């Protein structure tokens, strides 16, 4: 399954809906999307991972890179994920402490620092 990406605005947040596999093959496209959004002045991102089937450490690297970019503009990057198999890799790498992880887009969009 290939990567699918779509973005929309919700108030001052930008929601990036990701589907399919984020791996060494597709991660460059996710990275490009995040870089473009920041270049476009979108500093408050919500990455919806509910339709992600697979995530590896290359994908984690791109998410960490996105977080660094928005932080440089005092922005935020929140994740939406309730899938146990995806959460597991955040847990193994300790990145649950780095990313705010929400159980719905509504919750992530309304969250404040």
């Amino acid at each position, binding site marked *: 399954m290939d990567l699918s990406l779509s973005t929309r605005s919700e108030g001052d947040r930008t929601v990036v809906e990701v589907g399919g596999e984020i*791996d*060494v093959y597709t*991660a*460059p496209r996710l990275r490009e999307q995040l870089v473009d959004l920041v270049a476009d002045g979108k500093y408050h991102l919500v990455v919806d991972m509910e339709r992600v089937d697979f995530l*590896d*450490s290359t994908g*984690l690297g791109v998410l960490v890179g996105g977080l660094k970019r928005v932080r440089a503009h005092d922005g935020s990057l929140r994740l939406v994920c309730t899938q146990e198999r995806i959460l597991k890799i955040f847990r193994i*790498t300790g*990145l649950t402490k*780095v990313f705010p992880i929400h159980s719905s887009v509504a919750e992530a969009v309304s969250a404040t620092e």
Partner: protein
Amino acid sequence: MATVELRFSALPAHVRTARLVAAAVARRSGVDEAVLDEVRLAVGEACSRAVHLHRAHCPDRLVMVTLVDDNNAFEVSVTDEAPRSDEQTPSFAEIAELADSGDSGPAAGAADPDAAYLEDMVPPGVGLAVIQGLVDDVGITPSPAGGVVVRMTWPT
């Protein structure tokens, strides 16, 4: 004892092929359905690591994956031929700190000039850390052709 060997040139797309093969052979070998995601992820991490190292050091050499279905175990070995470096498996705290650092952590040998996304790459040791966090039975040993063999075993 059933054996499958897969060799592939150092391209990200082939990592998908390796995952696909590992999952198919694991299932057929009797690895539990619930564990197949773990097999897919661990084999993918080992292959991504090998592909990055080959691109940096020996882009013309093939990465090798061996799948052996032994009596009570399914064993996958991923062998790279890149010169061994002092690759460190970062501690989990160090991984978390990456998000705060200005750069992407310790340099991964020579950089692959074509791959812009390497800028965002977690250091190659993170792949190994994921494997070790995920799989109970992992061995990492020097390979005869340079590089290492990452050997992962699951019960069947």
